[in-house]
């Protein structure tokens, strides 16, 4: 699983700037229990058997986001696929149309900016090479409701860091509430796991990692801890305590112990370890369920999806030809490889919902808002695709969520998507009109053109005019003219 270091650094930096590193400051006053296993709570989904190199998305989205959202909404994750979130939804946007690893924070960023589709709304994908994108306004609209609000990072290189995470796993600093879960990364090829552990524990698993892996890269989820688990360190010292790791390699009988294993605190206390061997940070997240306010509905047909990106915007006046405020959509941004819109060997037709809710203040600022969709087409990958727009409309849920106002872009169906920016707009208020001359009498700087004008007067006579020195602040303009009062065409 190859991960570009620079890309990772950028994403981590972005996450830190956007969301802010955070720690749980609240502390429960009651004593912390010896063991916590949040994977036994109803909020945790059935074990995932990841497809391809999707471990980070499986851990961050499939497990952690799903768990935290169900914890927030007090829902049973196993009750319905509507209560589980699709890790392939984010992975297939991120992976560039090739089976490779990703960064979990990229998935959380999509969740922050646009939400996550449920498993119920994501098409079945059995092979890593299908790279599917879901289609349908309702599917994406539902996704918009489920959002990340914050990414938490925990530095775990000593006992203090371990204790901070233990408390987070216990109750996230909220007395009487269930705890959170966190993600981490480590090498995974060649590790040693004793699957016959029979030592003390309160959580009862028989798989204990006894040696970190020398190779590979993998993201996993910590779902709890057990302070009674014993591990003999390489120097013969008996240590106590371990985190409970939940893997994404399915629930096969031979896979650890029901997909889980203990990862002793000992390894986390080795502050001189490399981050590749075992990450120095763990990541948690806060989530929210949010009602959308304004949503763009976009339907198109295109053969090579990584050529396209989308921006959604608004301007202040119906006559504007360009948006004043313009935002990049967090998905389908030159992503997904050289495939049709819905994936490898799938349909080239797709329908999206893009959330504009974060930007509604810009609509309030305007008396006659005009919505803009910009579809940018630039060759990416091996081939330049082709296609056309099918529909574009804007749903405004602000006054009545059950009956949104719908603004429709007319005459867009069948318009070819050309290279560069393809700009489509919808006026919410008809543009004002008035009567005037279409002569270009001003240049781009707002001053009268240097060329002379010939004016025909109300009674049909001719005058040549040169305007100059247009001063709008003073309300003055100079005019030199020669008038032929006899109706002649001649000016001399």
């Amino acid at each position, binding site marked *: 699983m190859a991960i570009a270091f620079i890309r990772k650094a950028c994403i981590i930096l972005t996450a830190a700037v956007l969301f802010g590193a955070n720690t749980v400051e609240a502390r429960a006053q009651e004593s912390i229990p010896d063991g916590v296993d949040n994977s036994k709570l109803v909020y945790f989904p059935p074990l995932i058997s990841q497809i391809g190199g999707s471990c980070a998305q499986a851990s961050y989205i499939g497990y952690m986001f799903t768990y935290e959202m169900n914890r927030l909404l007090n829902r049973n994750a196993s009750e319905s696929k509507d209560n589980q979130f699709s890790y392939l939804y984010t992975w297939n946007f991120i992976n560039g149309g090739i089976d490779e690893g990703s960064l979990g924070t990229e998935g959380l960023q999509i969740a922050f900016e646009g939400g996550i589709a449920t498993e119920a709304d994501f098409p079945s994908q059995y092979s890593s090479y299908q790279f599917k994108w879901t289609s349908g306004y309702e599917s994406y609209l539902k996704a918009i409701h489920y959002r990340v609000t914050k990414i938490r990072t925990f530095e775990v290189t000593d006992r203090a860091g371990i204790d901070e995470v233990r408390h987070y796993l216990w109750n996230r600093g909220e007395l009487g509430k269930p705890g959170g879960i966190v993600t981490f990364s480590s090498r995974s090829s060649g590790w040693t796991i004793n699957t016959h552990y029979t030592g003390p524990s309160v959580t009862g698993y028989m798989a204990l990692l006894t040696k970190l892996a020398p190779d590979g890269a993998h993201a996993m989820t910590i779902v709890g801890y057990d302070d009674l688990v014993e591990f003999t360190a390489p120097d013969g010292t008996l240590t106590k305590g371990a985190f409970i790791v939940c893997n994404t390699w399915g629930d096969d009988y031979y896979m650890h112990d029901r997909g889980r294993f203990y990862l002793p605190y000992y390894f986390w206390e080795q502050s001189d370890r490399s981050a590749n061997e075992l990450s120095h940070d763990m990541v948690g997240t806060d989530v929210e369920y949010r009602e959308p306010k304004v949503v763009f509905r976009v339907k198109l047909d295109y053969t090579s999806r990584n050529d396209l990106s989308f921006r959604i915007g608004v301007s202040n006046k119906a006559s504007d030809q360009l948006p004043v405020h313009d935002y990049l959509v967090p998905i389908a941004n030159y992503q997904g490889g050289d495939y049709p819109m819905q994936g490898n060997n799938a349909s080239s037709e797709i329908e999206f919902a893009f959330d504009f809710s974060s930007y509604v203040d810009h609509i309030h600022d305007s008396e006659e808002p005009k919505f803009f969709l910009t579809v940018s087409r630039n060759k990416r990958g091996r081939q330049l695709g082709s296609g056309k727009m099918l529909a574009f409309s804007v749903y405004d849920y602000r006054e009545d969520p059950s009956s949104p106002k719908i603004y429709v872009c007319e005459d867009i169906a069948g318009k070819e998507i050309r290279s560069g920016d393809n700009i489509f707009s919808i006026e919410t208020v008809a543009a004002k009109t008035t009567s005037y*001359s279409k002569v270009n009498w001003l240049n781009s700087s707002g001053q009268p053109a240097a060329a*002379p004008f010939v*004016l025909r007067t*109300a009674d049909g006579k001719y005058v040549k005019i*040169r305007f100059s020195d247009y001063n709008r602040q003073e309300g003055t303009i*100079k005019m030199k003219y020669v008038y032929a009062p006899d109706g002649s*065409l001649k000016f001399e």
Partner: protein
Amino acid sequence: MKKVKILSLILAASLCCACNHNESKEPVIEAEVTIHELDNGKWLYFSIKDGETVGTSTFLSDEEDKLWAARSDWDFAICGDYIKTNSGTSGNGKGGILRDETHNFQTLKEAPADGYLIDSEGIVK
């Protein structure tokens, strides 16, 4: 309603000497003026014959536009980025305007016979 300072006028009046006996060509009138009291919120109307402004109307007022469209005592009006002539949807007159890219002001000796833009409804930008 004089809002114009005529800096120079006249000139060619009686200097026309190329007329034959049957022609009574009026001399051209040459002038240079500064129009005052332009405003982005109102049209300011100008009469070429009188060499002065003749009134104003509120921008985007259909009612006032109609009244001015019926008048013949103005030739063009200015409001912000817009100019209108007494023609088409702006007025009942025989007006129109063209921009001559082939001459400068001095070398333009004769008005084109056609090519004049007649006013029409347009989007307010």
